[in-house]
Every structure is written in structure tokens, then in C-alpha cells.
């Protein structure tokens, strides 16, 4: 059991850390990664042979819990979040950031984590068909926004603020 856990950690520790860093501020990365592998150790008998999508799913839930806990524990503090975004391509970043979180997450899993659609479905906790539909719609919306950015030139109008 312990040997298997060590093998999983050695194989996927960096990937899980990268997954978290793509979605959360650096200050919480260590905590989320640690908690993810604590869950992995606790449920080692349930971890499938293809363990990476399962680990991403655990990290995703851990991130959600961490965000909720921060909001609950510090009601009088500022709610501050830094969402990592596409780098080096401002047009893409602007279009990507205006998609819904649901759209962004499925696109991140495919483009940034390099997952297949079935593996992305495991992470998202949805069926393969639902994930495929979600992915194609998200991709289409991103494409539309990028095409609009390349073609539309609204004329200046009356100033409003």
C-alpha cells in the first residue's frame, strides 16, 4: 500500500502541483497539494490504475473546499483571488477570461493538462458524452470571441460611464 502511494506521488506529484498552480494563488498551492495526497493515501484502495485524472478530481474538490473555507473563516477580510490566465497572448487571455468557469475548466484540462476527453470527464465528474458536448461548446465560444476580436471595429459613440 505504502509502496503504491510512493509510486503515485513520484509519478504524478509534479503534475498535480502544476494543476493547482494553474488555478490558485501560490500561497495555497502547498496546502492543496498536501491535502490531495493525504486523500490519496487515505483512499489508496480506491485509486484507479490510471490515477492522474482521479488525482486531478481530488485536487479540484480540495481547491473548492479551500476557497469556501477561506471565505467562511475570514468573513470580515477581503476576498482576494488571483486567477492564473493564459500568458504571452493578450487577445487570447481577454477572450478566455470572459468565458464561464465551466467553459474555462474543460478547456484548461484539454489544453493545459493535456487530458483526453474521457479523462477530463473523470475530473469533472460528468459522463463522457456530456464532457464532449461541454468541450465543443466551450471551444466554439472561445473561437467566436477570437474571431470577433479579429474582425469587429465598433465606431466610437457617446461617452457613458
Amino acid at each position: 500500500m505504502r509502496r503504491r502511494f510512493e509510486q503515485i506521488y513520484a509519478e504524478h506529484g509534479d503534475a498535480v502541483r502544476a494543476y493547482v498552480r494553474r488555478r490558485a494563488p501560490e500561497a495555497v498551492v502547498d496546502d492543496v497539494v498536501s491535502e490531495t495526497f493525504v486523500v490519496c493515501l487515505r483512499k489508496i484502495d480506491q485509486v484507479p490504475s490510471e490515477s492522474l485524472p482521479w488525482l486531478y478530481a481530488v485536487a479540484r474538490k480540495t481547491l473548492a473546499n479551500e476557497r469556501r473555507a477561506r471565505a467562511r473563516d475570514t468573513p470580515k477580510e477581503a476576498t482576494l483571488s488571483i486567477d492564473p490566465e493564459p500568458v504571452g497572448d493578450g487577445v487570447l487571455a481577454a477572450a478566455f477570461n470572459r468565458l464561464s468557469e465551466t467553459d474555462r475548466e474543460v478547456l484548461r484540462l484539454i489544453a493545459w493538462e493535456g487530458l483526453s476527453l474521457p479523462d477530463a470527464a473523470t475530473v469533472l465528474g460528468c459522463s463522457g458524452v456530456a464532457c464532449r458536448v461541454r468541450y465543443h461548446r466551450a471551444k466554439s465560444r472561445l473561437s467566436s470571441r477570437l474571431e470577433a476580436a479579429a474582425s469587429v471595429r465598433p465606431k466610437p459613440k457617446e461617452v457613458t460611464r
Partner: protein
Amino acid sequence: MSDDVIGRLAAANPVPHDRPPHLPAPVNALPPSRLVFGVAIAVAALAGAGIAIAVGFGAFNGISAAQHPPTAADKLDPSAAALVARDQQLEADSVRFVTQLADGVRIYAVATTTGGLCALAERLPNNNGNKNAAAMGCGSPLTQTQPTTIAGFQANESTPTISYGIALDNVAAVSFVAAGQEVTVPVKDNVWAYEGDNSSINSLTVQFKDGSTKTIG
């Protein structure tokens, strides 16, 4: 087009696969004497650049409203300041007040340790009525091809979503289509703001002071 989009998104991965995260820092193999010499050179260079460091960060290039020595106006609400200070991605002493919106929300520029630019909106009213919430979005420094940031916040359920951005000095206004309407918002003190959800903004076009335009998203 769509597969190109995924390729383009993959190329913009903020944590690329070919650079494993958290690599140990490289060991400095310089002998002690050369190390001391190197430190002396670095100290001399820093002393020479002292004024520039005090005044601004590279991430603020082209944003005059953020390029000033630290002042009392740069001081954040304590809760927001604590969060900024403990985030290792941010240059904690880089917070610079940029402007204040009509409803009292204050906009700050913050530099990241990797040279990125963050736009921080502070003193947002919480559900409990206290104006101590904040929201922040970060990205690459502004350039002529990406001359403005765009972010949004909704302080609480009873207030509208505000979309806003920090723009370069040569940007006069931004135009976009929101809810089917074409809207133009002027840039004042390097900041534009619009009452409406930024997820509904389409065809964002920057209007430069020389009359040219650039559609960025």
C-alpha cells in the same frame, strides 16, 4: 479554427509541461571571492537604480498614474494588505494607488514577482455592509497589442457587476458591445470602468489618443 484555438491556448499555458514546477534553486558554484565581487557589483547597480526602483516597477511602464513613489494613498485596507503580503506571487511593496471610482472603490496596480501586472479593486462593499472586500486580476504587462487589462467584480448580491481595466497612457477610451449595445467608456487616470458584467462584453476595442483603434477581444 477550433483546433488552432486549443493549440494557441496550450501555447499560453501559465505552467508549461516542459518546465517542471518547484525546481530547486540552482546552486551558486562561484568561489567565495567571485561571489563577493558579484554581490558588490549588484549592490552598486542597485544603488544607481535606486530612484527608479522607488518610483515604479517595470510592470507599470506606460501607466503614469501608477508610477509614483510610495505615498499614504497606496496603503491598502489592512485585510487586503495582509492577503497581498502573504501571496508569494506579488511584490508586496509594489502596490500603487491609481484612481478612485465614483462609488468609492479604489483601483491599485500591483506588480508580480515575475514582472506581471495585477489590477486590484479595493473597498468593495461586503454583504455585511463593510467596505473591506477586494478583487484582483493578473496578467502580462500592458503592451501596444494588449493596452488594457479587463476584469470584473460584484461586491455583493445587491450591487451590480463592475467591469474595469487599467490602460496605457495613450489610450483614450475603450469600446465594446454589451448586451447588444455598443458602449464607449473613457479612460481617466489610466482606468476605465463600466457597470455591467464583463462576461457579456464582446468586441473590446481600444481607442488610442492618435485616433487609431485596436480590437483585443
